[in-house]
């Protein structure tokens, strides 16, 4: 019987090595897999490359990972947030590498990997600092920049409900990067608030089919 639901959270991180690339879902405070990030901090893997939209704020989540000095490089669109002081300290002292990517390019580079594409041409960032040194091409009279796919060893995402096959539905704008990160990583771990029987998620409304999900972790909502 297939059962992707893990008994112990740390089991989902089997195979994690130093230097691994890890995608982490979430936008601002929505859709962040907090408990999975906490578990990642406990794994002691270092020199990680993190692909995510924001660089964390306060003391928890990605900020905790930064504070524990586990991250060599962050690939993101918007590292500056209210109280993103751990990132700012590391960045200003040259202790973390930043690859700044326009948010649409970030999403599409992740999707490209998940879809097996070698990259794509986009008009976004043409003629700006963020396209410097990149291949360009004129297509139908418009200027495009070539962008490469982003792959990862692990993706940590948060959804609302899963079944034991790993089919997922999300909650509101907490969906954000979850579905595309699930497609792009070798090992996708989804943290969910509820596990339901097979068939209880209507096949018409499944957002991420289980083929993209390796492990499911049930984390009851903190109330």
């Amino acid at each position, binding site marked *: 019987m297939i059962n992707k639901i893990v008994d112990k959270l740390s089991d989902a991180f089997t195979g994690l090595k130093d230097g691994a690339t890890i995608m982490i879902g979430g936008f601002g405070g929505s859709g962040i897999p907090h408990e999975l990030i906490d578990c990642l901090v406990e794994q002691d893997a270092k020199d990680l490359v993190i692909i995510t939209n924001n660089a964390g704020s306060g003391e928890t989540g990605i900020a905790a990972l930064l504070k524990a000095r586990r991250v060599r490089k962050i690939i993101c*669109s918007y590292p500056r947030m209210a109280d993103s002081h751990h990132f700012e300290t590391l960045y200003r002292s040259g202790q973390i590498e930043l690859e700044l990517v326009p948010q649409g390019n970030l999403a599409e580079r992740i999707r490209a990997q998940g879809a097996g594409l070698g990259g794509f041409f986009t008009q976004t960032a043409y003629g700006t600092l963020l396209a410097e040194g990149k291949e360009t091409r004129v297509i139908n009279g418009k200027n495009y920049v070539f962008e490469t796919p982003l792959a990862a060893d692990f993706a940590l995402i948060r959804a609302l409900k899963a079944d034991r096959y790993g089919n997922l539905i999300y909650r509101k704008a907490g969906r954000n990067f979850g579905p*595309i990160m699930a497609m792009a990583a070798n090992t996708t771990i989804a943290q969910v608030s509820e596990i339901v029987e097979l068939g209880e998620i209507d096949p018409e409304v499944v957002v991420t089919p289980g083929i993209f999900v390796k492990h499911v972790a049930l984390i009851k909502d903190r109330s």
Partner: protein
Amino acid sequence: MNDNVLKPITRNEIAQKIAQSIEEGAYVNLGIGMPTLVANYLPKDKEIFLHSENGILGMGPAPEKGQEDWDLINAGKQPVTILPGGAFFHQSDSFAMMRGGHIDISVLGAFQVSQTGDLASWHTGEPDAIPAVGGAMDLAVGAKKTFVMMEHLTKDGKSKLVEKCTYPLTGLGCVAMVFTDLGIFEITPSGFLVKELFNNMSFEAVQAVTQAPLIKGN
């Protein structure tokens, strides 16, 4: 009467001007900061769809106190609501809406706009500034029309309508219209065409504080 007196309108009045120019059925993205004010003035008798880059169409106003849902936030990470008929979607679909030219109007703030429609809005270029871009570069080039909403002058009185941007660019030749506290300016092949100057200000008064040459409208 002094013809050279500047009589700027308020930020809320700029927001009103932009809101009045938006037609029924338009899909609109309002950027972080000043453009968010436009939502407060959308005509109630028209159905207009607000898009939020983090994955919402049909975004509604802020919830009442105590009703905040932190999975329902806007691009500025503030709590919002969703209207009947709204939809949620993932990041790749959300940015396909922008990059694929499906969003009719994007309203962005800016540091500078050039007479050829170049936009500088994301980075001051100062060495100690932490760069952050978010969806600005996608919105600038992807929407059918990019509007800029900003004050005409910087805090120390420098023109933000310029011949050539000195700040790092967000997009090249992407701006269609600029709404400032002094007037409305359309980017044309010959430069900034004055569509309206507020409070009956004279062309000369506004040109005097604008670094780029302005073209008199009708």
